[in-house]
């Protein structure tokens, strides 16, 4: 019997299996976009047939970070901005796990920006969901890296003098191999994109627009939205880096002006980091984690290295 039978033995999973005995209403405000992410993620995991015990969801800190509390799988609610380094090491340790990382725009594009850049560059095989509500939710409404220029908050009373970050463009230049933007107000598209992201073999970054009715007063801030794949005005090839880059730039500029463009922006077939590492011999073929349950494995010892020290 394998040590990890949740991964090995496939069975049909009911959506409710991803629902723990705790209510998200416990911390999320009514009308919060985070509910939409939760619902889409449950739907997508069920659709691709994942067993809750083979999924590891690593979250950061923020309202968004609570996702792991309300999604029943193996979960790791970590520290602010650090979900990615924890998630990617878990994936290296056991590449058979379905690893998802999630957090807010402050978490991912602010404090965790360095990890975002490097995880995308390395193209780790995982899904990364950034709840983009253009605000710090949990700490009560401060300006975030995605808040529009001129945004006023208690900590920026004169209005922010900074342009917002461009997360899609950042992601592309850093090296993510799947980049999409969806919105909690668009549940069907959100689920479809999540399904693609889970199935994508590489770093799949989803900028997930989530409204924060408590601190960003307009609960409908992402309605109406346009799907760039469905609209004739936008014709670009998602696998063409340059065209994708231009489209992202457009989408980001328009968002600042209140026009919401969502959809798939970039897709690239490139070996994931794990594949690259196995290729160069820096990573074992079999998941490292399994070895610790394999009684017949012969462990090398430091004594094997002693000839160097004689």
């Amino acid at each position, binding site marked *: 019997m394998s040590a990890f039978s949740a991964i090995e033995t496939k069975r049909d999973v009911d959506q409710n299996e991803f629902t*723990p005995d705790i209510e998200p209403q416990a911390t999320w405000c009514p009308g919060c976009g985070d509910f939409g992410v939760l619902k889409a993620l449950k739907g997508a995991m069920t659709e691709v047939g994942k067993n809750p015990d083979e999924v590891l969801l690593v979250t950061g800190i923020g309202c968004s970070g609570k996702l792991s509390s309300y999604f029943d799988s193996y979960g*790791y609610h*970590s*520290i602010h901005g650090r979900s990615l380094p924890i998630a990617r090491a878990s994936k290296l340790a*056991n590449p058979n796990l379905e690893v998802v990382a999630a957090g807010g725009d402050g978490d991912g594009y602010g404090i965790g920006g360095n990890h975002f850049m490097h995880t995308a560059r390395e193209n780790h095989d995982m899904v990364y969901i950034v709840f983009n509500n253009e605000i710090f939710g949990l700490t009560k409404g401060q300006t975030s890296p995605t808040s529009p220029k001129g945004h006023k908050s208690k900590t920026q009373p004169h209005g922010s003098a900074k342009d917002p970050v461009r997360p899609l463009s950042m992601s592309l230049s850093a090296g993510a191999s799947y980049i999409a933007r969806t919105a909690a107000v668009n549940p069907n598209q959100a689920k479809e994109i999540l399904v693609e992201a889970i199935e994508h073999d590489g770093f799949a970054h989803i900028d997930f627009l989530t409204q924060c009715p408590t601190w960003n007063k307009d609960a409908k801030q992402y309605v109406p939205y346009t799907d760039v794949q469905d609209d004739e005005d936008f014709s670009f090839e998602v696998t063409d880096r340059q065209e994708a880059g231009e489209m992202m730039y457009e989408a980001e500029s328009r968002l600042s002006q209140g026009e919401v463009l969502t959809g798939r922006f970039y897709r690239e077939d490139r070996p994931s980091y794990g594949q690259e590492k196995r290729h160069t011999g820096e990573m074992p073929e079999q998941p*490292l984690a399994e070895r610790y349950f394999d009684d017949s494995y012969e462990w090398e010892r430091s004594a094997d290295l002693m000839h160097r020290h004689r």
Partner: protein
Amino acid sequence: MTNDELLWRIAGGSGDGIDSTSQNFAKALMRSGLNIFTHRHYPSRIRGGHTYVEVRAASHEVKSRGDGYNFLLALGDSFARNPQEDAYYGNEEVKPLTENLDDLREGGVIVYDEGLLDESDVADLDEQAEENGWHVYPLNLRGLAREHGREVMRNTAGVGATAALLGMELDPVEELMEERMSGEVLEQNLEILEIAKNEVEEREFTHDLQIPAVEDGGNDEQVLVSGSTAIAYGAIDEGCRFISGYPMTPWTDVFTIMSQNLPEFGGIAEQVEDEIAAASLAIGASHAGVKAMSGSSGGGFALMSEPLGLAEMAETPIVLVEAMRAGPSTGMPTKPEQGDLEHVLYTSQGDSNRVVFAPGNAQEAYEQTRRAFQLAYNYQLPAIVLYDQKLSGELINVDEAFFDREPNPSLGSVLTEEEIADAPHHHSGKFNRYRHDVENGVSPRSIPGQEDGRFLVTGNEHTPQGHISEDPDNRINQMDRRMEKLESIRAELDANDQSSQTVYTPDDEAEHQYGIMTFGSQQGTVEEATKRLSDDGHSVKALGVSELLPYPTEEVKAFLDSVDQCMIVEMNASAQFRGLTQKELGGYGEMMTSLLKYNGNPFEPEEIVEGFESSISGDGDAPGHSTTFVPAASD
């Protein structure tokens, strides 16, 4: 005394091959049957600058650097020879001669490369030599190397000259060269070695220093290892197969050794974007079921503070290494100090719930790294191995058999799927990961991917199922359980018949007038000083403490109760170890004095002897300017 031990110092510029030459010389001496201890001194500079390595070789056991040295091989700094007139380095090329002379013992031997160094640049070398009875041999090592090979081989010429002057056989040196070189390079080196030896042998010698006599034949069962090697090998034998790090001196030593070996052993090494990531990766790998390690030095460890706290709260096992160098801030990158003790004990918010070991020598470094993994994985908390730049780089000979150990790949308190099925679950079906009602404070964990084992980890306070909770009763239960682990660990460590603390009693008496106590890497030096003091008729014994958290209260009390007064030796300015000891024991302050050193160099045994004589027994000169004496607390 002359032939009792050789203290050979090779000096030159960083990047001139001083390190590898000295290592091979040390190995050759070890192979011929001598005991070895090396001390490395280098500046924070990549090429050029003054650097030296001291190789102490004796037929008796050596556990520390010596006091000064008796043989100087001054090679010259090739990088200092800048063709431009007003080169930044100025006439630094005489440094290998000038910088070293203070520590050269009376009657010592100087060999210098007259191809690179000019004796006339050192104004009073002749007078100094006369005064101290030094024997000076100028040799054109550079010319010789150029003529028979390449200039870089002047190190080899220096070794050949050393062999001639000390009456040493070349066989072990040649053997080592044959093992690590080949082709033309080997031929040329062997030739230069021979020629240098023969040429020098024809000269007339005035000195009588000889290679120390070997007592009982060879020493072929010995290996030469550093503290960092020992830590890396301890980790490997404990089944650690994941390392994540970011370079920082001197932690880089362990990081490099692990990175070079893990892929060959089917493990994973990751150099990442910063130290926060490094510690977080170790957490991720460990959570997913792999034995993982990370580490850094002062500033990098500061960045690890938050993930360290997460590992405590989330009870994810990890082992971190902290290799101290002189601080604060970036301090002196290549100089040892023991100033991060409090940082490592108390960094991160909340009550510290971690294990800290501070090994005193290479063997302890190996054993305590293994112990750190065992405790981390059995008790689900972070364990830290605290050492410093001195222990990191110094080489010592160890019985090869010492490393012939059983591996231990056990993940500790992890359940199999069968065990998970039998384990208590919450009525919702969720695995009770953080049960209150367990022995030792340890609630067994499951690994992602195991059927029916899922749970939530969080750095927030949480219920047994891992849900965030601020319920006061739950908080007390969880907090008490986590803290209980430290008590269980203390009990386990105390019950172990092999204590980690090293008591050194030269005369086997239990009761003594005086004690000397230290922690970490100063242990060998303290032992050596204690032996000298004992030989001089003092009633003294020593204790090297290497468990810092949980603190070995009973053992330290027993030691202090067996002496009248105790001197605490440590390499920092604020007596951090003494402070810890007083905090843990809640008394004994009036019997403790401190001997401190923080100038970037580790203690020499004689400095401890002097400090002891002046401060404790009151019959010596005041300690030198490089050490500081802090008297006992009094009412």
